[in-house]
């Protein structure tokens, strides 16, 4: 018994010491891994949910247990403010930044270093806005509903303008809440029609400041139906919440994040390895399977449940329009939905 456990320990140690050659190429050269492990830690700024990113770090540490990842999490606008202020004072602590708003990150491009992952060619060109930023996270919008409350669930985006869902049954995240919501708002108007907002607003939609509280409200039954980022509701469905989510045939608006390594990074090798792993097939597969993400890889390693690649198409906003239309359209959206900004 004792000997067996010693052997098992040895085997485990051996496994963590020697990666298969293919895996090494996937995540970076032997030298990079050695240099990263020597640095031993990195600081990771994220606008994503702390718990989700905690899982990412755990999975990364399964592969690279010697690199400690310290995380700072704040809502999108606040993390940008911190990055700007810290950088100006010469005290930017972040090695890697993970942010959903490509527009805001593009403004900070100067703070980031050039970086290309080993599998750069596998990524969709329309998901890239700068050679410095890469979509480590890609999220997609789904239609979620409470299975205990909705007898006739919606099947398309257009269903969310139906009279039968009138009276605060539908919940929506407010337009100006961030890059992810702005993508959905743009999709609704450009793909579903100029009058889509008006039709939906007439149903007396319940407004929420961000997606996570809305997903909780859906599970509690405060609202019955809500367009939600799939990852926010996915983990709850897996845990057995009375909810379900579908992808609609008109398209799935996706949000490729803009993640980058800072120029002032004190652990540039660890940062690179962390980025490489997150962008690798393994990292993306983990994110799809465990977190409910979508991917910006041209050929997704797998699809979420209920996603038929023959029918469901992703929709990526044109980046110049993403920037140009934003203020004017959001103002109109606020007016249409009676949201005060």
């Amino acid at each position, binding site marked *: 018994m004792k000997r067996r456990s010693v052997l098992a320990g040895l085997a485990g140690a051996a496994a963590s010491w020697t990666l298969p050659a293919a895996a090494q190429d996937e995540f970076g050269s032997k030298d990079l891994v050695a240099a990263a492990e020597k640095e031993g830690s990195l*600081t*990771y700024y994220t606008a994503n*949910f*702390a*718990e989700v990113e*905690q899982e990412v770090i755990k999975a990364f540490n399964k592969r690279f247990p010697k690199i400690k990842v*310290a*995380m*700072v*999490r*704040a*809502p*999108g*606008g*606040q993390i*940008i*403010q*911190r990055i*700007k*202020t*810290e*950088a*100006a*004072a010469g*005290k930017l*602590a972040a090695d890697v930044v993970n942010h959903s*708003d490509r*527009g*805001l990150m593009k403004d900070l491009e100067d703070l980031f270093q050039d970086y290309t992952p080993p599998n750069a060619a596998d990524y969709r060109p329309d998901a890239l806005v700068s050679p410095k930023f890469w979509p480590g996270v890609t999220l997609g919008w789904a239609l979620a509903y*409470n299975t*205990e409350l909705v007898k006739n669930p919606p099947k398309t985006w257009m269903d969310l303008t139906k009279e039968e869902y009138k009276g605060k049954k539908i919940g929506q995240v407010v337009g*100006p*809440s*961030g*890059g992810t919501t702005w993508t959905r708002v743009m999709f609704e108007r450009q793909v579903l029609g100029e009058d889509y907002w008006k039709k939906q607003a007439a149903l007396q939609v*319940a407004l*929420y*400041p*961000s*997606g*996570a*509280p*809305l*997903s*909780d*409200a859906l*599970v*509690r*039954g*405060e609202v019955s139906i809500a367009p939600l980022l799939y990852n*926010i509701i996915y983990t*709850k469905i897996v*845990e*057995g*919440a*009375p909810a379900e989510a579908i992808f609609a045939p008109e398209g799935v608006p996706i949000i490729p994040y803009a993640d980058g390594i800072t120029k002032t990074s004190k652990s540039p090798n660890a940062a690179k390895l962390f980025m490489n792993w997150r962008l690798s097939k393994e990292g993306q597969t983990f994110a799809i399977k465990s977190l409910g993400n979508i991917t910006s890889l041209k050929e997704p390693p797998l699809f979420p449940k209920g996603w038929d690649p023959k029918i469901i198409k992703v929709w990526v906003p044109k980046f110049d329009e993403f920037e140009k239309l934003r203020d004017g359209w959001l103002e109109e959206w606020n007016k249409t939905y*009676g*949201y*005060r*900004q």
Partner: protein
Amino acid sequence: MTATSTAALAEATDSAAVPRRWGAPLWVGALLIVLTFLVIYPLLMLLFGALSDSNPVVDGFGKFRPSLDHFLKVLANENVHLAFFNALAACGGGTILAVAIGLAFSWIVVRTNTPAKRFIAGASLIPLFVPPLVAGVAWSILGSPKTGLLNTVFKWIGIDFRVDFYSMAGLILVFGIYYAPYVYMFTSSALQNMDPSLEEASEVAGASAFTTLFTVTFPLIAPAILAGSLLSFVVMLGIYGVPAALGAPANINVLTTYIFQLTAWSPPLYNTAAAVAILLMMVTAILVWAQQRVLIGKSFATVAGKAFRPRSLNLGPWRWFTFGLALTYLFVVVVLPTLALTIAAFRKFLFIKDFDALFDAKAYGWFHFAQVFDNPLTMLSIWNTLKVGVITALLGGALAFAIGYTVTRTHVPGRKAIDLLSTIPVAIPGLVVGVAYLWAWIGLPGGLYGTIWILALAFVARFIPDTVKALSTSFMQIHKELEEAAWISGRGLLSTIATIVLPLARPGVVASMTLLFVLSIRELGSSLFLYTSDTTVMAVLLLDYYEGGNIGKTAAFSLVQTAILAVLLGLTNWLSRGAAQSSARVG
């Protein structure tokens, strides 16, 4: 021997006089410098932000183009107006309710023979220790129009009535019941100190007890009522958690939630937030000024020179009615929310179809607690919070002692300025203070940023007024004669403070440090911008859970936080009792 002691006394006075000539200005100067660093400098940064569209750290002062335009634009924005009037309505309504409850409570506790008065008095202060976000979350679980537990119960009983706490009425109610203790604290001491002979005169003249209450008693303590209500109004005005949980679902913005949104939207509008914060500060400043005016009046109106016992009214069988009232309040403000949090913390999903579903044992378990403690940030945040709490309590306690002593016990020139500077932070809302501190202190050399100390400094600055106020009362109770006796017998100022004032004021010092400790554990707004991965605190993590949309984990972590607070309060209570006893021995 007499000659020797006279010479010694002269010598002592002489040697004390020289440093005192320079000592006082130096001392006042030092205090002013500390307060300028802690209060004025961040405040200037905030003004800078409100009056321009630049970030002082990023753009530098060179790009500062002062203009009122930006500020005026904010003033003209109708959404700001709406948030402003909502805030006035919610806090105004809440204050009226708080006065009604607080006054009733102090009357019950001080002036009647209601049973279990001491228990009622102690328990009625509990709401003060509940973080606002926790209160808001608990009441959203109880009072949501669609899924609220109260409505589920009403439905089960067969009552058609439904409550909706996602409304202005809900905000007012929750504000009122949670901030009633502020009014209670002021009015109960006033009632205790009041000369009962006027009431007796009223009753001799034929007025009923009820008439006497409203025509003599309450008017007599009117200054205390006003002071308590102004304070509770000001505190409500700066609260984020309650309107965030209850107002947001109904699209009701108040100034604090509006400021938070401005900083969370993308792109964030910090300068607008700073301008709204200045607006909030102006309202608060006017009220604080009004409160101080009222407080000056208070000492003339209610404190009489002769010794007396407050009258205790024999209520007869009605005392069970007042007892019932007190229990009802405690049930509503302590039992119900705790029950709601407990259900949310132990239930896997908070979807409760009907009343019977509440008792489905399968739906309950330790999942959320397991997940909360599986998160490495949880223990880190608890540890950090305790560290920050201790540092804040020690630093803040020492500073408050220095300020309180200088302001209330000496006549040094400049003490009025110290008093003023140490009152200003009351008027600064916590959410924006974080940005101001970030802007102000990140550029300082010496690696303050990113440490526990910057959080502690921010808390010390933010809570100076509360701590000084808590301490000043205990200074006032120490008679000047005792200090004078020490001076005459040849002790220097510092030695007098160390041997006379400090031991006598020790219960007050411990109490104010406890207060500081509790406040710093609850504090969210100023932590949000100053924490880093290594210095994350409980309040930030709680907001993370809340914003992450997991009500179960939010509730579980709230209970953990409450339990820690309860243990710590018990501990400090025990400590301060020890202090009180030993100082009683000294006295």
